Structure formats: structure tokens, C-alpha cells
């Protein structure tokens, strides 16, 4: 039973089938970060995937750029309730990066420059669902939006798309990351409104 707020009519922007429940459309690109924006030079940037047997798969910026690059047209949904439809990114599919990675672990902790972390099931990163993105709407990704490279996992709330990504660590259990330890949902499906724990 909902409480009615007297005189509230709302803007009635048609929700449409592309907008998950409780979200509103924005043309802006709001920024949400827990701390200062780290400065990461592409010359120093490195990305690695670390498996349970401590094997390290590492890519430099140039090595990543030599991989097949995909264009991704997608909608993004932030837990703070804005959604942005029809964004265009360029990046490398996680399928490409995981091609030679052997692991039996089913979960991943994403680590960022600056110390941010977020946890995801491995299956949410594979089969064309996730990328390392370095371009947004035709421009190099701005530092405040996670540049030079961020994780892009658009089917989950956007805090899962870790900015300033530096590596993925395979884990046996689904350990909570930064926001997941601070009251937010462990999985974060916008269509089921999995905002808070």
C-alpha cells in the first residue's frame, strides 16, 4: 500500500520498455566516485587476470589495443536512479581476454587503480556481456568516467563497471567488494531493482 503524496503529479516521462523500474532518463553523464580520481597514464597502465594458482595474465595498453576491438551500443543504469540510453563505447570483450585463462573459480573481484573493488560472477563477464572500455561516444574515456580504461558490464548497475580497472582476481566465493560492503546489493540487477543489501 503506497503512501500518496498530495499534489505530486510527476513529469510522466514515459518509462518505456528500456527503462528498469525506479530509474529516470538523463542526457547528462553524472559522476559517482568514492574518492579522488586517480591519474593513470596509458604508458603505465596494465591489466591483469589472476587465477587461483597465482598465474598472472597481463596486458599493457599496446597489447590490449592489438586485440580485436568491438563497438558496444548499450544502455547504462546507475543505482542512484539515472539511466542513459543508447550510449556507444569501444573496447575489448572479456571473452577475448579470458580466452587463454584456465580457472575453476566462479567469481571475480575487480580491482581498480585507487583501490576500488567490486565483485561479480564470472558468467556475467563472459558471452558478450562485458568489456574493457576505453572510448565513450567517440572520445577517449575521461578520467572522471573511469579513463583510461573501465570495466563495462552494462546489464548490471553501473557501480559494477569498475572505473580505472587494473585487474581481475578469480575467487572461489562471492566476496563483497567496496560498495557491496557498504550496504549495496551483491549482484545488482537493475531489472529486479537489486539496489541495496
Amino acid at each position, binding site marked *: 500500500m503506497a503512501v500518496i503524496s498530495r499534489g505530486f503529479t510527476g513529469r510522466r516521462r514515459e518509462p518505456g520498455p528500456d527503462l528498469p523500474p525506479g530509474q529516470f532518463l538523463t542526457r547528462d553523464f553524472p559522476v559517482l*566516485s568514492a574518492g579522488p580520481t586517480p591519474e593513470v597514464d596509458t604508458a603505465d597502465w596494465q591489466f591483469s587476470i589472476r587465477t587461483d594458482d597465482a598465474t598472472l595474465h597481463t596486458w599493457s595498453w599496446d597489447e590490449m589495443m592489438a586485440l580485436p576491438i568491438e563497438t558496444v551500443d548499450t544502455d547504462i543504469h546507475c543505482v542512484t536512479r539515472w539511466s542513459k540510453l543508447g550510449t556507444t563505447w569501444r573496447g575489448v570483450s572479456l571473452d577475448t581476454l579470458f580466452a587463454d585463462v584456465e580457472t575453476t573459480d566462479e567469481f571475480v573481484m575487480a580491482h581498480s587503480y585507487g583501490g576500488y573493488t567490486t565483485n561479480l560472477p564470472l558468467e556475467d563477464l563472459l558471452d558478450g556481456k562485458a568489456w574493457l572500455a576505453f572510448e565513450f561516444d567517440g572520445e577517449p574515456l575521461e578520467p572522471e568516467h573511469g579513463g583510461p580504461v573501465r570495466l563495462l558490464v552494462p546489464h548490471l548497475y553501473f557501480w559494477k563497471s569498475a572505473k580505472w580497472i587494473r585487474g581481475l582476481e578469480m575467487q572461489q566465493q562471492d566476496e563483497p567488494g567496496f560498495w557491496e560492503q557498504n550496504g549495496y546489493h551483491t549482484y545488482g540487477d537493475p531489472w529486479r531493482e537489486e539496489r541495496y543489501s
Partner: protein
Amino acid sequence: MAATVSKTSYATPSGRVIELDVPHWPGNLAGQHLDVRLTSEDGYQAARSYSIASVGSGLVELAVDRIPDGEVSPYLTMDIMPGDQLEVRGPLGGWFVWREGATEPVQLIGGGSGVVPLMAMMRQHAAAASAVPFRLLYSARTDDDAFYAKEIDDLAGPALDVTWIYTRKGPGSWTGPIGRLTRETLAAAVIPAAENPAVFVCGPTPFVEAVASWLVELGHDPARVKTERFGGA
């Protein structure tokens, strides 16, 4: 959770302080936020997050700035009256918070309505008569646009060091500079990095981006600079 508006007052020309009576409010830490959900008579709903200016249980105080093309903030700042009802969910967020037991000095830096969660921290600090050094650097467009200006002036003193920045116009008695915060002013006003303060920065995105980068350049440990941003980049 159902909430009833118990009191409203104008904080600035575009902002309003709203006191909510939330019978089942479990209390909140200083700096946390909540979700407000509005429902129209025909069932249409809209929800947004707002920082909480108060601490403790029962009464919850928000200070909301109007976003001209917004959906929820115009209602909260122009239409709402005591007795009106809405729903809240919270408290939310466990990162941008100050806990009374913390012993390190605290530097608060607010831009515009970004002072709201910092207000909760200053109020808790004052209510506890805490000996932890607290400093506030508050940047507002004009003195009229400053949220909680009088209360901040009243709290200012040995327990709370306050530096005001006015980007357009100060109060009549103001003899300081007018203009945007600079790195030099910031460096002179904040607790030095050597004292290892906990730093909380909240405001519009460009303000927080500039302040947080300067703090890092001035030697502050990025892990001790907690930020909350609003608006686009």
C-alpha cells in the same frame, strides 16, 4: 517507511529544509543518505536519493536544492507542506560517514548543497562536545545561497574552524575575496596532510574533482579523501 512532513523552511532562494517524522526510523550515522519516493494519486512513482542533515532517530531532516528541470526536487522545494506524506528508505551508505568514536582530525569541504551531509557531522560533533579537531571549508555562490549559514556561524569557534568561500557575492560585512576556490586558498585553509586528517568532500562534480585532485597534490592520502559528487561532468 511512511514519513510525514512535520516542518519546512526556506534555506536558500532555491533550497528548502524539510523535517520528516518517521516513526520507524532506526537512526542514521552522520553523512548517510536516504531514498525519497513520491506516489501520485494514480499510482505514478518517482524516487531520488538525498543526504540527511540530521543524526539520530525519529526526526529526519533533509535540505533539498531545486534542480530546475528535475522531477522530485521541484515538488520537495515548492509544493510540500507540513502534514504531507511520502515514503523513505534508509539510512543508506556506509562509506561517507563520520563516527563519533573516530579520533583523527576531520576536514569537511562542501560546495553548495553539498554541505548537507557535512552538517550532520558538525551537528554530531557539537552534540557530543567532541574534542576531535573539526574544520569546514564551505563554498557558496552568495551568502543567500549558503545552506545553514546561521547555524554554521553559531557552531564556529574553538571546536569548529570555518572558512567561507563566496564565488559571486559575500554578506555585507564580507571583506575577503570573491571568486572560486583556488588551490592556494585550499592549501591555506585545510588541515595539513601531515596531520593525517579524515577528509570529506561533497558538492557538484567539477568542484569535487578539482578539490580532490588538489588535496592529493598537497600530499593527502587518496584513501583518506572521501567524496560525494552530484550532477554531470
